[in-house]
């Protein structure tokens, strides 16, 4: 497809070449400059390198689970811009004739002067011998770079299979454990502090695993009617992953004397998204677009905390269709 495009560009450029050669029979305005085919090849090479690096960005983006992908993205996109810049530098240094103009241009409304200006622009390009190839290379570099810049937008759209993003390790009956795997009991959870919990017998490293657990004093709880039984003795659990940019919600604002201090809230340290743990994780402030997903809890007969189902919604940052489906086990 691209080869076809390049051939088309070459053909168009070739058609114009004859007309320009006829014009050059007339007296020149810009003195003929020495041809520099080697420099042209350098420019072409650099432009194709820019195109290749931009294509590499798209390829890196498409590879799932690439190690150090941020660095590869930066290297590819930065490299593309660098090659493009280098090409433009060589182009301006070696292929554009430089002439110092002594007098000012007259007012541009005179048609002959305008025509002369057009000719100056056209004839400035005369030392270039491979115009078609240069045009094709520049088009390839610009096009590929533009495409690379647009590639991440694909992640927003419904193109990819997002079904794996709905999955979490939580399911009905799974116990809550601390970082060392010790099961959490109802009695372990005190007020005015916060705990991080994980699913028993599952990886702690998946985005759906970590929870932030807090105990809300009886008078302050304000869960919606359909979630009243999601709390155990005032203990509520939310996904610890911020719904804005997936940072860990590691700040718990818990006033010692509520009448004079801001109300209790879970806060993400990255961009200060603030969630209300007493009101089903509602966003109080900040860039997060969705409430923190809540995990329904229950206590078993021995007093261990267990999940009573899966989260109220998908965990982590949003994507296309995030509000249409719930979390899956």
């Amino acid at each position, binding site marked *: 497809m691209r080869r076809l495009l390049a051939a088309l560009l070459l053909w168009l450029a070739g058609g114009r070449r004859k007309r320009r050669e006829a014009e050059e029979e007339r007296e020149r305005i810009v003195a003929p400059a020495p041809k520099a085919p080697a420099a042209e090849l350098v420019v072409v090479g650099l432009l194709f390198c820019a195109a290749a690096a931009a294509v590499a960005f798209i390829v890196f983006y498409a590879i799932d689970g690439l190690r150090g992908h941020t660095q590869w993205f930066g290297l590819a996109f930065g490299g593309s811009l660098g090659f493009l810049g280098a090409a433009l530098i060589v182009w301006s240094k070696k292929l554009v004739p430089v002439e*110092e103009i002594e007098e000012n241009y007259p007012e541009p409304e005179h048609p002959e002067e305008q025509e002369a200006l057009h000719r100056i622009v056209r004839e400035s390009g005369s030392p270039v011998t491979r115009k078609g190839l240069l045009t094709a290379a520049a088009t390839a570099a610009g096009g590929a770079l533009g495409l690379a810049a647009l590639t991440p937008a694909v992640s927003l759209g419904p193109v990819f299979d997002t079904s794996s993003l709905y999955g979490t390790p939580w399911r009905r009956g799974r116990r809550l454990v601390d970082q060392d795997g010790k099961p959490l009991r109802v009695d372990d959870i005190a007020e005015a502090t916060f705990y*991080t919990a994980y699913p028993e017998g599952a990886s702690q490293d998946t985005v759906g695993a970590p929870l932030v657990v807090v105990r809300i004093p009886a008078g302050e709880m304000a869960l919606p009617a359909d979630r009243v039984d999601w709390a155990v003795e005032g203990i509520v659990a939310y996904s610890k992953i911020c719904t804005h940019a997936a940072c860990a919600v590691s*700040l718990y604002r818990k006033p*010692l004397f509520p009448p*004079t*201090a*801001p109300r209790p*809230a879970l806060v993400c*340290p990255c961009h*200060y998204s603030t969630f209300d743990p007493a009101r089903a994780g509602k966003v109080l402030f900040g860039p997060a677009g969705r409430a923190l997903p809540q995990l329904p809890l229950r206590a078993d007969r021995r007093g261990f905390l267990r999940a009573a189902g899966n989260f109220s919604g998908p965990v982590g940052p949003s994507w296309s269709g995030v509000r249409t489906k719930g979390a899956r086990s």
Partner: protein
Amino acid sequence: MSGRSALAAACLVALVGAAPAAAQPRSGVARPDNGDSLSLRDLGEQLYAGNCSSCHGIDGRGVRSPRPGAGDVPSLGPSLRGVGELAADFYLRTGYMPLGNPYDQPTRRDPLQFSDREIRALVDYVGSFGGGPAIPSPHPERGNVAEGQHLFTEHCGGCHQVAAKGGFVTGARVPPLDDASATQVAQSVRIGPYVMPRFSTKQISDSQLDSIIAYVQRTRHPPDRGGWGIGNVGPIPEGMVTWFLAAVVLVITCVLIGERVRS
């Protein structure tokens, strides 16, 4: 009792009237003229009545709903029954108390408004309300800095930053820990001042707390491998330095590829 209330009221007027001058050391505090000759308990009682009772109540039961105070400053404050000497010592030795306006976040004050003897008297008096933990005596020299860093990152770093330089939580400032003594770190972990969560010995044992304090003390002299810590507060100053270097590189590039027009 009525005599004490009258004294309290008089002192309240004196205190609130002087509140704007709170930045000046030891002004705005009502103290008995014969403080040096009073016993510790009597001094504590009088200082409490003069400086604390308008918000915490003359009986230490607190003021739960705003009561009109002098000027625009309402009287409002938590009960001190059951908080104990630990909390009193922390709030007085950091300068968090006395607080000019109960709606302000208490901040560290230096120099303190009370002398050491006055603080001991007040701590003793608040302790006499009963309950609450005693002043802890941590041993950071027994702590393990590596374990402390791990625990600090997990429990404290979200708000105070890994470098213990403080920061913000929505609605409140998070203080840096540069000036916090070992005892004050230990106290704040247990009581959770202002909007900070508190941590029980189940969550952070006393020996783990020693490690955390050892780490906090280490953050005051961090090893700067690059030679320049740039404040040790993370990506913002580091990014600014990068921008500065990048700008220099860009200017050099412009000079190299550009040509000066001679006329």
